[in-house]
């Protein structure tokens, strides 16, 4: 199974991506789609600037996808990650995993998000409503922990 991986500045349509994974198929029992969106942090965030490492971003997401495929028998997988300026309410990332059974689809989608957070070469800079200077978002220990728990499985 060849996953669909896209790194793009443009927005995406979650419903359209889900339809592509299932249409014309009769072997998909479960589809789990995660969409990550930009929050306005109680009105304080004006926008995120997402920097990425072109080339490595696609390659690293591909490696993470292969790890998921080695762990769970997915029948379809789409991962999209945007870069550039993203405003509150807009979509940032999509992971959509299709499987025969729901446990596999849930686990794969959550694993992929945890791994993308800590391994995909993207960096967020925050533009605040009330400040001229933008600051880089610090990596969170909680994200490292979320990724680390899959090592034990």
């Amino acid at each position, binding site marked *: 199974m060849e996953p669909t991986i896209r790194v793009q500045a443009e927005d995406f349509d979650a419903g359209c991506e889900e339809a592509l994974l299932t249409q014309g198929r009769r072997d998909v029992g479960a589809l789990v789609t995660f969409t990550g969106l930009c929050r306005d942090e109680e009105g304080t965030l004006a926008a995120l600037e997402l920097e990425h490492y072109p080339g490595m971003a696609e390659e690293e997401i591909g490696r993470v996808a292969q790890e998921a495929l080695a762990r769970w028998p997915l029948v379809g997988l789409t991962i999209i990650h945007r870069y550039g300026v993203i405003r509150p309410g807009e979509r*940032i990332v999509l992971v959509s995993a299709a499987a025969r059974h729901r446990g596999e689809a849930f686990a794969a989608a959550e694993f992929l998000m945890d791994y993308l957070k800590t391994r995909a070469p993207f*960096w967020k800079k925050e533009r605040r409503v009330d400040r001229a200077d933008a600051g880089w978002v610090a*990596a969170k220990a909680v994200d490292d922990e979320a990724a680390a728990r899959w090592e034990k499985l």
Partner: protein
Amino acid sequence: MKAVYFAWVRERIGLAEEDLAPPREVETVRQLIDWLAARGEGYAAAFANPKAIRAAIDKSHVAPDAPIAAAREIAFFPPMTGG
């Protein structure tokens, strides 16, 4: 060897990429970081806390003790915050 920098590493150095020709005794990623940190103020600021620096060789993550001899492109950046 081409070096590429991202996020605040790029901002502190003031360059997105450059060509590097480290001396032969610089063999690992960690040694390259030390060598870069001594190049000037921006580099020193970028690499002040080596624990906060991640590296990739030819677009794959590597550990600080990875050898750099065969690298065509080496990247330095902060911990990732995508997703």
